């Protein structure tokens, strides 16, 4: 017996010696190094994502309330929730299938047998789901500890004993045990399959990807199930009360629109973009759309509404295509023509899409307005600040004296404290008659303006004789002031980045172009712009995402008199959380905002793939 144990010990010592021992020690060291950072980031960076999903599914006003399912999301974006809830699983399954095909491809190339890994992957994925169940059961118990210690002497012991109680809760305990067992089984199976070495060195990669595939499918199933049961519940309760609900038609219509959009995109890419005819057609379409918008009463014409929105989306897409067409043109006439077409189509699309909030009328109006304001803010700042930045950078990229000083000062508005800088703007653009900007207007004999206190849309202000509908009256003057602040503070940043981009374009290219007889415009058009496109792309992405996240300066410049016309998405979330203490609802809106930003990033990446030239 003792001999055997000695053998085991020596065997272990042998196993744990030399390189392996060093490797294990290094791993242990590395984990110690990473641990503090991961404790912080895990708790305040990764966990919040999962936790906010949890919160968003509950009624949660300071203290956790009952489970609500998708209700918070439905309250924010109404039936669009179901559309997303049905398309998201499809997207996830698509990703899973793509991963599977990639595995198959790789396995064929290397003559591997990856499917053996499916067995441990299945078990491990099951273990992870069991872990999620365990976490969901444990979380409320742990959160409840804060309530339990209220009024008691707060000691380490009390906390530990309460935590122990939560840990020992029967439901928690059973979930914990099964999780542990399943994960252990999975690990053992994985180890076994690894030992068989039938799959070569890529085994662990196959294994990890298969687990991810299973997790994707499981998430898809969960979201799909949640959405479907919610819809079925609504139909069931409507049948009881005798109400008529039309969720399915709406889902079908909106999904149809998405499919149509993809179809148009694919077809037009395959066929190329035919020139003059399409321009005329889309120009006419844009004008027609604006006309229709004026004709359609605010009646309950839901089918027509949806058709209009679909038209708007298609127009928006065509407008984008013609925007691309501009960049291919070299003559001034061509550029102007395509620009006009693009703008007309964009306006038409806007007139149509702006109907979306009305269709989904039951959605929370403040939230829709917040998103609309965010879009306005983005549209009115990003292009202008990019243009000013590029222009100043090009001017600076010459033999200019004191170049460094110019750059230093241009960057200043960007690096200062946003609260202080916005505080200055708050005084400059105050509605008082003696406010600096109003005095400036006075010099030109213009009546003083309300600036930050003006909720009326600017198009409406500019065209007082027309009675414009809400969607067309444009952003409020107050929001425009915020846009001015945005441009003021970010233009210099763009200048500095563009300057760096210009510096990286090799000069021989210009010389070669000049020898080939290219004029200044052609040099700019065919050398500078394409070679600058990575910079432009980077700045567009950063700026658009930045406008969607913007908070500080908008919060400072926000005035009660502007009646919420300056409240962008982040502001709405903040007030809903901080002032109205609707935690669950605020979480749902924040997640929707995150989805928006994600989609924007993906679209931007997609465009970059096509347009950016990494010379």
């Amino acid at each position, binding site marked *: 017996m003792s001999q055997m144990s000695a053998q085991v010990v020596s065997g272990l010592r042998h196993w744990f010696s030399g390189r392996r021992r060093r490797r294990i020690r*290094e791993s242990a060291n590395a984990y110690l190094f*990473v641990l503090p950072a991961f404790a912080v980031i895990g708790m305040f960076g990764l966990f919040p994502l999962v936790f906010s999903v949890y919160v968003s599914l509950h009624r949660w006003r300071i203290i956790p309330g009952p489970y609500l399912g998708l209700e918070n999301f439905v309250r924010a974006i109404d039936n669009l929730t179901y559309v997303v809830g049905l398309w998201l699983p499809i997207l996830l399954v698509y990703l899973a299938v793509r991963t599977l095909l990639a595995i198959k491809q790789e396995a064929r190339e290397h003559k591997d047998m990856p499917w053996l890994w499916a067995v441990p992957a299945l078990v491990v994925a099951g273990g992870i789901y069991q872990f999620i169940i365990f976490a969901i059961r444990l979380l409320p118990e742990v959160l409840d500890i804060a309530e339990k210690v209220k009024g008691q002497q707060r000691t380490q012991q009390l906390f530990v004993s309460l935590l122990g109680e939560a840990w020992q809760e029967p439901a928690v305990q059973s979930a914990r045990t099964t999780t542990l067992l399943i994960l252990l089984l999975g690990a053992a199976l994985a180890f076994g399959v690894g030992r068989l070495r039938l799959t070569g060195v890529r085994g662990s990669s196959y294994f990890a990807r298969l687990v991810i595939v299973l997790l994707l499918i499981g998430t898809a199933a969960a979201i799909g199930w949640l959405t479907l049961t919610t819809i079925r519940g609504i139909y069931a309760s409507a049948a009881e009360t005798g109400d008529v609900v039309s969720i399915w038609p709406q889902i079908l219509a909106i999904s149809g629109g998405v499919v149509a959009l993809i179809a148009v995109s694919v077809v037009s890419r395959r066929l190329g973009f035919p020139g003059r005819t399409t321009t005329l057609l889309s120009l006419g379409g844009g004008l027609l759309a604006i006309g229709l918008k004026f004709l359609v009463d605010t009646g309950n014409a839901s089918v027509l509404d949806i058709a209009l929105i679909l038209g708007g989306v298609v127009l928006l897409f065509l407008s984008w295509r013609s925007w691309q067409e501009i960049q291919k043109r070299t003559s001034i006439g061509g550029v102007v023509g395509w620009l006009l077409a693009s703008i007309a189509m964009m306006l038409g699309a806007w007139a149509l899409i702006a109907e979306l909030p009305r269709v989904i009328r039951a959605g929370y109006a403040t939230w829709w307005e917040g998103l609309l304001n965010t879009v306005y803010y983005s549209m009115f700042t990003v292009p202008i600040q990019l243009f000013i930045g590029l222009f100043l950078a090009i001017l600076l990229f*010459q033999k*200019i004296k004191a170049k460094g000083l110019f750059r230093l000062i241009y960057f200043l508005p960007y690096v200062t*404290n946003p609260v202080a800088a916005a505080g*200055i703007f708050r005084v400059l653009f105050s509605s008082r008659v003696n406010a600096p900007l109003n005095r400036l207007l006075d010099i030109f004999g213009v009546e003083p303006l309300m600036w930050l206190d003006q909720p009326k849309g600017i198009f409406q202000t500019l065209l007082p004789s027309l009675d414009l509908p809400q969607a067309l009256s444009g952003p409020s003057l107050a929001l425009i002031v915020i846009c001015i602040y945005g441009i003021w503070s970010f233009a210099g*940043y763009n200048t500095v980045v563009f300057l760096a981009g210009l510096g990286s374009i090799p000069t021989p290219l210009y010389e070669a172009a000049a020898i080939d007889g290219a004029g200044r415009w052609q040099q700019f058009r065919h050398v500078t712009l394409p070679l600058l496109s990575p910079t432009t792309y980077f700045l567009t992405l950063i700026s658009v995402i930045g406008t969607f996240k913007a908070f500080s300066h908008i919060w400072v410049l926000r005035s009660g008199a502007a009646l919420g016309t300056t409240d962008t998405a982040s502001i709405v979330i903040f007030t809903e959380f901080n002032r109205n203490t609707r*935690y669950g609802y605020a979480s749902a809106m924040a997640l929707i905002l995150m989805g928006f930003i994600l989609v924007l990033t993906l679209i931007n990446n997609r465009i970059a793939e096509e347009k950016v030239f990494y010379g």
Partner: protein
Amino acid sequence: MASAKKAADVFSGSPVSVVGSRSRYVDVWIWFSYFVLVVGIIVAVTPFFWMISASLMTLGEATGRAILPATAQWDNYQQAWVIGKFSEYFFNSVQITAITIAGQVVFCTLAAYAFASMGFPAKNFLFALLLTTLMLPEAVTWVPNFITVTWLGRIGPIPWVNNWPALTIPFMASAFNIFLLRQFFSQMPPDLWDSAQIDGAGHLRYLLQIVLPISRAALVTVIIFGFVGAWNSLAWPMLVTNSDEWRPISAGLQHFLDEAGSYVHWQMAGAVITILPILVLYLVAQKQFTEGIATSGLKG
């Protein structure tokens, strides 16, 4: 498109294109360029000029039609400092910033070093996990982190809300800093580590005595980011402070802007106090600012 035309003409002034015989045209263009650039400077600087000017005015001048104060009222700063409680806000922010930066330097350096030059299982997975936090908008973290922080305060020995932990600990490690430092550490020549090992140094000693002194530039960037982030943040401090005891300066200024609605001269003095440290740092460490911040898109 007139503006595009203008932009196109730019290269008549660029060193490359001055091959032709358009020197007069070039002259005019250069003068035009200077004109536009100076206008740009004026637009960029005027608000600051007005801030300083108004901070030295009397209340009557600040709300009246004056452009410059008749006599500089240096007292305003005294008033803002004491009555506006900017002294408190300022020192709160100094403490919060110092604690945050200290944490960031220690935690991020350790983690970045591990990711750069140590081998361990699941390294790539953990790094990818870290980078996903960069995608997260701040708004998503407000609710869950607030709940977490109140919970931690209730169960722990010290409260977190209205106290330094809530203001500093969540920001003590950032994926971005780790990423930045890792890039820097990966460029260390491997020979260094080999010779350090021969001299009997372990990872920690190698990191402290060799890697860090070489990486001063990267550390300065991390410190600047930490400073700007902590000094300028508004949303989170507003959520977790409701008294002046720990309110940092940006939230304090916002509070003062709301409370002292009509005292424009004091508000502007407060704005100057808030801006000054950032400004000084910017002038001192210009290079790190323009290079570091410009290429990273910090601040959104």
